[in-house]
């Protein structure tokens, strides 16, 4: 197991280097002078020159990258051009609503997708299965901003059951916190649930044709016991991979969801930074998001090896 982790970590190193290089070069892809793009409205040439020096644009590219990389290793991801606050501080302020949204959405998606995936597979080619597969298709094809606006329209505007654009931290006020996160979490959770339902259905269908399931049936075990004790455990392995990969979808979805529901999260921070042309902030947040994505994939790889010994030993 230790070897597996070491192998995966070593394989991540070149990717990490290329990711940092990509994020660093991002600002240099800006057509023309990035300083002008960021501070075009300002007439203060001294301020522009100060920013140019702060970002090291007066030095060769390789020196800029080395300096930037050195700061990264010390945990310094740069400063926002607008607020002058360190990127980590900005992200730190916004991370809590995003994490709460992600956890809530994940809970909703698992609550829907696990029973639906199991029922769909165990009732293959019936109306229950059709319902499950139609739900999965709907969730995959439905743009999350349209779904968000549909939920706002029905539950916020027409029925007035839930608030549509106010964030209350569930740790400060649990009832209103959950109410304020309900619609964004449903928006984000349904798309995830669709993918997980589809994966679990096909994985469970495949598992149910395995010899050990046939043996369990021949032994006279009840179908529910076969699914619970034999099939589901193995069928969940691909679901874990998908869950890891869906971390990216979760972040992408969070960008849109936080924008629509005006949640003060990291997704909203990215959008605001993009519109303010605050490139150091964009760089910092995108880098953090990518690192989070790499870490989640690494965790999934390791979990996969832990759950499935064939992967652990085959390398």
């Amino acid at each position, binding site marked *: 197991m230790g070897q597996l982790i070491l192998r995966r970590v070593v394989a991540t190193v070149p*990717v990490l280097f290329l990711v940092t290089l*990509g994020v660093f070069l991002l*600002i240099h892809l800006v057509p023309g002078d990035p300083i002008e793009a960021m501070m075009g409205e300002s007439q203060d040439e001294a301020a522009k020159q100060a920013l140019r020096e702060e970002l090291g644009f007066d030095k060769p590219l390789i020196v800029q990258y080395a300096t930037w990389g050195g700061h990264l290793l010390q945990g310094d991801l740069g400063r926002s051009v607008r607020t002058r606050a360190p990127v980590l501080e900005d992200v730190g302020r916004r991370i809590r609503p995003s994490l709460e949204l992600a956890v809530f959405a994940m809970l909703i998606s698992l609550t829907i997708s696990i029973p639906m995936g199991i029922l769909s597979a165990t009732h293959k080619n019936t109306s229950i299965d059709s319902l499950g597969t139609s739900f999965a298709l709907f969730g995959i*094809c439905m*743009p*999350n901003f349209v779904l968000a606006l549909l939920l706002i329209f029905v539950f916020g505007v027409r029925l007035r059951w839930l608030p549509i654009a106010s964030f209350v931290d569930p740790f400060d006020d649990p009832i209103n916190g959950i109410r304020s996160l309900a619609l964004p979490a449903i928006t984000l959770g349904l798309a995830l649930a669709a993918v997980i339902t589809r994966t679990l259905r096909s994985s469970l269908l495949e598992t149910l044709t395995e010899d050990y399931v046939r043996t369990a049936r021949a032994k006279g075990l009840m179908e529910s016991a076969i699914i619970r004790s034999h099939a589901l455990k193995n069928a969940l392995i691909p679901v874990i991979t998908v869950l890891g990969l869906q971390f*990216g979808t979760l972040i992408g979805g969070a*960008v849109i969801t936080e924008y629509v529901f005006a949640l003060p999260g990291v997704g909203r921070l990215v*959008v605001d930074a993009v519109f303010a042309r605050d490139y150091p902030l964009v760089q910092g947040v995108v880098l953090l998001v990518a690192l989070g994505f790499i870490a989640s994939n690494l965790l999934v790889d390791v979990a996969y090896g832990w759950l499935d010994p064939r992967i652990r030993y085959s390398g």
Partner: protein
Amino acid sequence: MMQASAPARPIQSAMAAGPQVRGRRWQVIKRAVTARLAIVGGLVIAITGLMAIAAPLVSPYDPLRQDLANLLAPPSLAHWLGTDNVGRDILARVIWGARVSLIAGSGSVAIAVSAGSVLGLAAGYWRGLVDDVVMRVMDAVLSFPALVLALALGAVLGAGLGSVLIALGVVYAPTFARLMRGQVLSIRTREYVDAARLLGAPDWRILVRHVLPNAAAPIVVQASLSVAFAILAEASLSFLGLGVQPPEPSWGSIINAGRGYLQQAPWMVFGPGAALFVTVLSLNFVGDAVRDALDPRTRV
């Protein structure tokens, strides 16, 4: 094991006969329905495509014409999908917006297929350093969540259709590079490739004449499925304000404009939203049918 399983077969087949017959019948029905869905999907795509091409002819109004006497008018015979906050006809804007969506969907996937295929072809055929460098770069691109990378690229390249095409092309290219590399790794060891090499064919000729045609099927399948996601991604970027800029119509930006009028004029959101959903759904039907036709193993 053989001894144990042999007597079980007749019992098993007898027990399973009923469900098997039902299952087979259901399979036939399902395939027919699936094919029918693909036909419906194909028809919807064809109609959307024709509308997009013939927008100047079929659009009931100029999508930019403001009718201040008809602000936020609900759907009616004169304006089938209603009007927006400055009196523009929503149907006309949806028809013109289809152009942007289809161009963005097919254009970005074309860029991704071209770039990804060339990179995957080179990595799989030459292996070694080329393979290592190309695939690590692809891994790095895949380390960014798709929408976040598209957003970041859109931010530096500026808003507009061109930027969206490039951003989404970059985001989707690694998928095609990985697919192509996998195909090439298996094809390059085939006898006909060895034969061509022994006959003295240059690398480019082997790649173009022998490897590429045999590696194309999964690329076509993936491309057909990716167009739907590219349309969704373009709409998301336009919704956030990084795609085609108003007043030019695109489905995402029309929906974003309607966001503030959800209470008074929900048709501003749900007309274009339905067009987007139906188009993506139809593309999925067609994509699934292409996949089933080209890769029977994926039938479940």
